[in-house]
């Protein structure tokens, strides 16, 4: 079906394709690289015939262990499905699941268009992965996460059935199946191509850097900016520890002697960005900002963003391992949540670095540690679970943009009732009665109140390492 050069079976290769950017390790049976949707359908049929799970995989940048084969299975790499067809008139593009996020925007740029979702990993992560995880990014404050930009898709479902869902026209009749596929982490089928919305590149942009002696000044600035009627393109906060790590690595000229920095960006017509930038400065200064720096040109702007998007890389420079969490709280409860996150880290004797999408209330506490020390690893997991619980107790959510995967599936019970999870399991069952697509992800074992005869797989020992 697929030629030998498009199937990997060597142990080293299988090892590599059994990992993603999480701390977990799975076990692949083989890795395949289909070129077309028809080939994917063929792989699905073979997998079903042999009752072997299928785990679709883009670039493996996922942080929630959503793309690792838990207990054997076919890893279906989408990287060979990388066509881009742009429709300039309608501002849409059909994009192969394996296309890299940034490549799409680069391809669209000559037409004055851009793909809005911009996860920090955008130079590596794929559109298929973005669709699977409903990825966000710094700019989804104003423009929404991936789901707001997916208009349609080609999918392969159970039985190898190929469907085109949605389309360029709005509100296509019937249940919105393509919307359900977005964020389903490969558990309902395999998305082979996505029809995405592109946005016109804005006429002008201003990027501001404000530094605060207290974190609260930064978060209050965020609240007041939004209360003024403005939804900036981005509002990002980094705490002192994170800022220092970034500055030591990149020399971006970030102030390291303040409690927090706020990176704000406004886009639009030139008159608008001028007025909006002035407004943000005013609000920032009134809330204790020591200084407001406005990027003078694209080069300065690029370095500020590089600082933000390299935050995780910066920590990798100072620590052998890090564990990054992703949770959300109502924006009004950011400060108290941050304080508790710090208290939890202190209690476990862990270093925590903070960078977050302040406008969305989306926290990314990052714990630096040495994974070769099993005691440390255990502490990190326990502290992480407590941080998530702290967010949930404030009306927050388990994950804002990284997904549930294997990492958080057992925490789903802390957020949802048995009936809620049963309903989720029923959605899964309607698509994938045989339990072939990315099993053991998203939903905890036993979510379905009544057994449905699918293959049950326990997480093998050591999957957390």
């Amino acid at each position, binding site marked *: 079906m697929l030629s030998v050069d498009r199937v990997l079976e060597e142990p080293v290769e299988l090892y590599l394709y059994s990992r993603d950017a999480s701390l977990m390790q799975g076990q692949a049976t083989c890795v395949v690289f289909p070129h077309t949707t028809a080939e994917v359908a063929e792989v699905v049929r073979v997998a079903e015939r042999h009752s072997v799970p299928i785990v679709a995989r883009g670039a493996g940048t996922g942080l929630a262990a959503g793309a690792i084969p838990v207990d054997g299975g076919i890893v279906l790499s989408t990287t060979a499905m990388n066509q881009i067809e742009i429709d300039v008139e309608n501002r849409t593009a059909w994009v192969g699941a394996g296309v890299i996020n940034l490549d799409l925007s680069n391809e669209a740029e000559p037409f004055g268009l851009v793909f809005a979702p911009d996860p920090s990993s955008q130079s590596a992560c794929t559109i298929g992965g973005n669709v699977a995880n*409903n990825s966000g990014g710094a700019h989804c404050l104003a423009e929404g996460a991936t789901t707001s930009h997916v208009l349609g898709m080609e999918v392969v479902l159970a039985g190898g059935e190929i469907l085109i869902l949605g389309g360029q026209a709005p*509100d296509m*009749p019937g249940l919105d*199946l393509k919307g359900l596929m977005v964020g389903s982490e490969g558990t309902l089928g395999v998305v082979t191509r996505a029809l995405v919305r592109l946005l016109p590149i804005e006429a002008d942009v201003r990027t501001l850097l404000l530094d605060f002696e207290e974190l609260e000044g930064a978060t209050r600035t965020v609240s007041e900016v939004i209360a003024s009627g403005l939804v900036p393109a981005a509002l990002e906060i980094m705490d002192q520890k994170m800022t220092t790590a970034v500055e030591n690595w990149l020399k971006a000229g970030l102030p390291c002697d303040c409690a927090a920095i706020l990176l704000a960006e406004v886009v639009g017509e030139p*008159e608008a960005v001028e*007025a909006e930038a002035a407004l943000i400065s005013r609000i920032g200064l009134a809330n204790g900002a020591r200084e407001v720096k406005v990027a003078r040109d694209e080069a300065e702007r690029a370095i500020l963003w590089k600082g933000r998007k390299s935050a995780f890389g910066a920590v990798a420079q100072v620590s052998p391992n890090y564990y990054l969490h992703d949770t959300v709280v109502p924006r*009004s409860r950011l400060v108290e949540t941050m304080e508790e996150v710090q208290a939890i880290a202190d209690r476990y004797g862990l270093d925590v670095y903070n960078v977050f999408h302040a406008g*969305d209330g989306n926290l990314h506490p990052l714990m630096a540690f040495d994974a070769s020390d099993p005691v440390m690893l255990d502490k990190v997991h326990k502290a992480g679970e407590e941080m998530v619980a702290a967010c949930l107790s404030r009306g927050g959510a*388990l994950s804002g943009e990284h997904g549930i995967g294997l990492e958080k599936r057992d925490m789903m019970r802390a957020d949802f009732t048995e009936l809620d999870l049963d*309903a989720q399991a029923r959605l899964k069952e309607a698509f994938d009665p045989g339990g072939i697509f990315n099993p053991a992800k998203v939903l905890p074992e036993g979510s379905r109140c009544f057994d449905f005869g699918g293959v049950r797989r326990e997480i093998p020992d050591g999957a957390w390492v």
Partner: protein
Amino acid sequence: MTAAAGGGPERVAPSSVEDLVTVLASATEEQRVVNVVGGGTRQGYGSPPPPDLVLEMSGLAGIEEWDPDDLTVTVGAGTEVAELEAELAERSQTAVLPEIPGRSTVGGVISVGVSSLRRARLLGTRERMLEVRLVTGDGRVIRGGGRVVKNVSGYDLPRLVVGAFGSLGVITSVCLKLWPVPPASATVTIDDIGASERVRRPLAVLERNGVTEVFLWGTPEEVSASGGRLGGVAVEGHHWPADPEGPFQWSVRVPPASTSAAVGRLPAGWDYLAIHGAGEIRAASADSQGADELRSWVETSGGALVETQAPDGALDGLDPWGSPPPGLEIQRRLISQFDPGRVINPGRLPGGL
């Protein structure tokens, strides 16, 4: 809970989620067809059988939780859109729901899947959805999503209920993402639709029976600069056009770039309101003549022509939805997991679902 006597179907207005559970569980047991009514403004969709029971949602209304700082609001499904938006406007916020809602309710607008006229800029009703609570046909109370603006925990049930006509359950409350209303706004009438392109991302470009208006909002500086670029006659504030009304009502859905072409193909005499940039046209007509040809053109262009209302007993031979959508079998399986007796609004969805 009240039940009115008299002819026709029984009418029930549950005053709590528990009431609703009882009503739906017994409807499923007794195989009684339930028609859910919010404001009763959009009861013309699909081909439903006559109901045994009319479920009025007015008892599950009101704002449950609203912290303006969070840009989220949680409301009962029976809350009237106009009431909610008036409340939000006092703190300069909007849920970006339809502008002239009449007596439409939040739950009704979501279940039917109609959107704001601002959808080209701020997107449709599905993008408002953060959390949904619903009661399934067999009386299970379930929740999906959460009360935060960003959430990827589990399958996206909140967005799935948009346009689902209650087939996954009767919505009892939702948490919506809000948008702050900026200080300045204007409505600019222009002669030529092409002029609207001088503003990169206007709030809305609407064409009502040949008259084109551009809606702007933002800082005063931005609104006045954009207004100047457009030319035309500008007035302060937003003066939203009403949806066309007539015995027959239609929703034309085409790729955005085909909006003008679709307007050009509307049969003579149809009133219309086109949302440029979104590919949606709302239309009304005295009869359904010419709808067949329009539908075949629209479907060939990758869209749909939906008959959203027809007079009682109109025998125009048209399927209200047009060609059946892909994945009907999966849709049927999904629905059977949530409404196993298929008692909530059967026949409203395409494909006879």
